[in-house]
């Protein structure tokens, strides 16, 4: 369980780094439209959705861990 938690945190840190360095990423910083939005915006929106999903997964893992701890106590 802890292993999964750590992996999710690593992914979240990566997302933050990718979003912060967006202008440096050539494929994101282009004057084109993708999925109806400017490429850079689509890039950021994609990572935002992924971050929210990862947090939900992390939260559910946390709840499971809490229940397991209570049973042990």
């Amino acid at each position, binding site marked *: 369980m802890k292993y999964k938690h750590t992996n999710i*945190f690593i992914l*979240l840190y990566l*997302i*933050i780094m990718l*979003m*912060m*360095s*967006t*202008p*440096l990423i050539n494929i994101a*910083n*282009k*004057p*084109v*439209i993708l999925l*109806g*939005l*400017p*490429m*850079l*915006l689509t890039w*950021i*929106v994609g*990572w*935002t*959705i992924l*971050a*929210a999903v990862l*947090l*939900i997964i*992390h*939260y559910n893992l*946390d*709840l499971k861990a809490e229940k397991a701890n209570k049973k042990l106590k």
Partner: protein
Amino acid sequence: MVATSIIIIVIYFIILIFLTLRTPKSTKETSFEDFYTGSKSMGAIVVGLVMLVTYYSGTTWTGWTGFTAETGIFGAYMLPYAVFAGIAMYMLSGKIWPLGKRFNLGTMADIFELRYRSIGLKMLIGFLGATLNITWITMELVTIGYIINIATGGAVSLEIGALIGVVFMTAYTLWGGVRSVSSVNTFQSSLMVVGAIGVVMYAVYSTYGSVTNMFEVVLSIRPETFIIDGAYNMRQWFSFVLLCAMGVLCYPSLYMKFYLGKSTNEIKKSSIFNVAGALWSILILFGGFAIIGYEAVTQVSLGTNAEEGFLLIVKNSGNAFIYGLALVFILAATMGTVDGTLLAISGIFSSDLIQGYKRIQRKSGLIGEESYSLNEANDNMVKRTRIIIIIVSVLGYFVTLMDLPLLVMIAMINYQGIALFFVPLIGALMWKKGTKIAAYTSIIAGFITTFGLMILKVDLSGYLPGVIGVLIGAVLYVAVSLATYKEELPEAKYYEIIKSTITNTEKEIDSLNKGLV
């Protein structure tokens, strides 16, 4: 159009009065903790909505759309910083909430006192935080005055418009403290979210036909607005995201939301809500891009003031209801930011500064010690906080009457100062070797660096002075901590207490508070 706007705004104010009156009025018996944090009793949806309306102020719909119209896609920096802040809040909630519950904490400065064992440091944090946060009140009051002014077709002046907003907000904040503020803000936040979706989509579809068409028009006339070009702008982007993310967590009006929830899990859920809520903020970008391509599509000029552009588009659409809805959701967003800020700052003045001073005079114990007592019953902290709410409102109103530069720029100056608290805060919660002297050094040196660079207008090739300030503050925090750390220091001992509190369950904390364990 004016009549419809006035009717919608009057209905809005009637709802505010109704929501305020149905909240229990705080009395002489109300404790400061209850007045300021609602005794940590709120659910995730309320906390999430209250946070959202504090985060996305009314200025967003004037300043930020205008900023996007001028800088293009650069305005999207709000998404990364909201995600960054939401993730950090999620991670920190498991540490900050249990401490707040166990030691009855209300402000960020309380954590500094608890961990670094210093009332002086608490007062410094309180003073700087309140001073920097107070400018938000001024900025937002300008927006309130502006909205009421245009809603009434100029019949109500900017000054009187701002005054009406101040009177309402002060009244419902005084009524029930954070409980009435939360009740009103839940409504204001819902209105802001739904209203913005309806109005922005209407404005975009009625002008361009679709969102994609709008971007295609902008791409054909100003492709440079789709990219962040050049090293200078890239450094600016990095600075904006970093400082805003660090700053937003430390803003008194947002930090206090950590203590509104009834459990760590409620705060975690509200953090997730805010990360997902960042997606809503792309509407602000739509508003900005709608301004850029408007003249090309309609042959109608929006004038030179980009901050007024979005509302002009809605007005020009000719739909009185949508225009009234636009004005009222911006008003709701503004009021929702100011009331929380007003309460946060007043609480800081009352609890961190005045009470802190009194405790130094009395030589009372520090948070966590048996001799510690906030002495709220004797000192009438709620009454004092109420008086300060009135004083801050009046002062904020008078500053509003002065000329102010571009609102986003004022916000950035604030963020650069507030972000300097981030490193010592994280150190307090996660690093045993962090010391009081290091926290003082980091904050003071960071402020001198940041504001020194600002005043001297040093060219940093795109980096904002706050980034250098945070960097110097962080290096000094680590270096001074390593140089001054000793096992027997009180702050080192309290780190262990903090660590054990964080691992306690909510039931165990309740038992500790009742003295059962």
